[in-house]
C-alpha cells in the first residue's frame, strides 16, 4: 500500500488509546491487539486530526525535532502506511488518503 503525501487520515474511532509520558499505547478492540508508538510516533499520532495531510504532519515534525523535511516526510509516510495497514488509521471522510 502506498500512502500519498497529500492524503488525509483520521484515527480509527473504535480504538482505545492513551499517551503516557510521550509514548502512546493503542488497542484495537476487535482483535484485542495492543500497539505502541514511541515519542515521535506519538507526536505524529496526536496531530492526526482528519484534516492534516502527511506533508503537514512532516512539517510539524521539522518544527519539533531536528530533522530535514525530506527525512520527516519519509518517516511520516512510513508510519502512516504502517498504521493504515494495522487499521489504526482510516482515510478521512472527504479526504483523499492515498
Amino acid at each position, binding site marked *: 500500500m502506498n500512502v500519498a503525501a497529500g492524503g488525509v487520515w483520521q484515527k480509527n474511532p473504535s480504538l482505545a488509546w492513551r499517551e503516557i*509520558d510521550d509514548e502512546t499505547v493503542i488497542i484495537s478492540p476487535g482483535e484485542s*491487539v495492543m500497539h505502541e508508538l514511541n515519542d515521535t510516533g506519538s507526536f505524529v499520532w496526536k496531530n492526526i486530526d482528519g484534516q492534516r495531510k502527511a506533508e503537514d504532519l512532516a512539517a510539524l515534525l521539522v518544527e519539533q525535532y531536528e530533522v530535514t523535511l525530506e527525512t520527516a516526510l519519509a518517516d511520516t509516510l512510513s508510519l502512516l502506511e504502517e498504521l493504515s495497514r494495522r487499521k489504526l488509521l482510516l482515510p478521512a471522510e472527504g479526504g483523499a488518503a492515498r
Partner: protein
Amino acid sequence: MSSAVQIAATPLMDRLIARTVRKRRPLSVHFDLTYRCNERCVHCYLDHEDHGELTTSECINALEQLARAGALFLTFSGGEIFLRKDLEEILTVARRLQFDISLKTNALLVTPERARMLHRLGVRRVQISVYSNEAAVHDAITKVRGSLQRSLAAIPLLQEQGILVKLACPLMKQNLMAYRGVMALAEQLGVPYVLDMTITPMMDGSQEPLEHRVSSEALLPILQDTALQSCGTKALPGAGESLPNFLQNFSPTLGSSVSSGIESNAYEDLPCSAGHNSCYVSPYGDIYACVQLPMPAGNLREESFEHIWENAPALERIRSVRESQLPVCSRCEIRSYCERCPGLAWMEGGDLLGAYERACSLAEQKARIAGAVNPKSAWRSETPESGMSRACPVPASGDSAVRN
C-alpha cells in the same frame, strides 16, 4: 529520528507496566457504578442500598480526571451496572475519552438492543458471573429463579456483536463441584472462564460471606485438577501484541474475578498493581488502591483524583510495601506457593504486611501437592501454640480492617 511503530523484544505489556509503575500512572481502573443489584448472591461482599451514588455528571467528571491521569484500561462493575439508567451516557463519554472498556455484569438485563449499544460504544469485553451449569445450583446462589437461563441467553447476543465474553465463577460451598460443569459450559460456548476461590468479607467488614467459603482442604480436588493447568493462551492474528491474560483471558482458569488489577511478573518486589498503576473508584466517589484493599484514600467529591492519587497517605503506605521486607512472609519456605493478597491480609488479618490464615493454608496445600513433606508456612511455624486458628493480629496504628 525514528517514528516507527515499535514491537520490542520485551513484551509490550511488561514494559508498559514497568513504566506506569515507575511513573506512577493509574493504567487500570475498576469503577463500580452502583452497589444496587437485581440478584442477591449469598456470598456477596456488598450491601445493595444506594447511599448516594455519583450523579451522571460526577461520573463523567471522574472519567475525565482518570483519562487525564493516564488511565487506559477501565472496568465498569457493580452491583449490577445495567441498573444505572445513565449507563449508555457514561459509556458514551468513556468511548469519547478513548478508554479500553470492560464490563462485569450478571447480564440479566442484556437485550439485543443493549448488546448493539455496547458494541457501538466500543466495549471490548464483558465478564458474566456464572456459578454452575445447573440452574438449581446457580439460581440458589443468586436467589433469582431463572437467572442462569437469562445470563446464558445474553452470551450469544454479545458474541454476535464481536464482544469478548468471559465467565467468572466464584467457588463456594454451594457450587464447589460445579466447576467442571462451568468449564464444560465455557468450552461449549467458546469463551474463557475464571474460577475464583476468593470469598471476601463484606465492604463494611462483616465476616458473614465467609461462612460460604470452602476450606482449603476441600479445595484439594480443584488444586490437583490437571485440566485447570492445561489451558494455554491463544494468540490472535494481526500485527501488534495480543493482549495478555487479564485483558484477553483465554488462559487463567484460577484467579480473581473481582480485582481488575493487572497481573504480571513485571512488578518484581511489589505485591501487585494496587496503588502503583491501578486503583478502584466506588459508586460514592471513594478511591481505594483496589476493591479488595478498601483502605480509604480520598473522595472525589472532596478532592481531585490527581490530588488523591499523588498525596493520599493510604496510597503511600500501600506503595511502600515490598515483598522482600514482609516481616513473616519473606522468611516463609513455601512462599513460592503462596498467592498472598495485601488487601486480604489487611481485611482478614488486620495487617497490610502480615500473613493471613487463608493464604497460608492454601500455600501449604499447594506445596503438599507439589511433593513437600508436611509443609508449614512461616506464620504457622512461628506460632505453634495457636496454629492458624488464632485471632487476627491487632491492626497497626491508624489501620482498620473494617471498611467503610
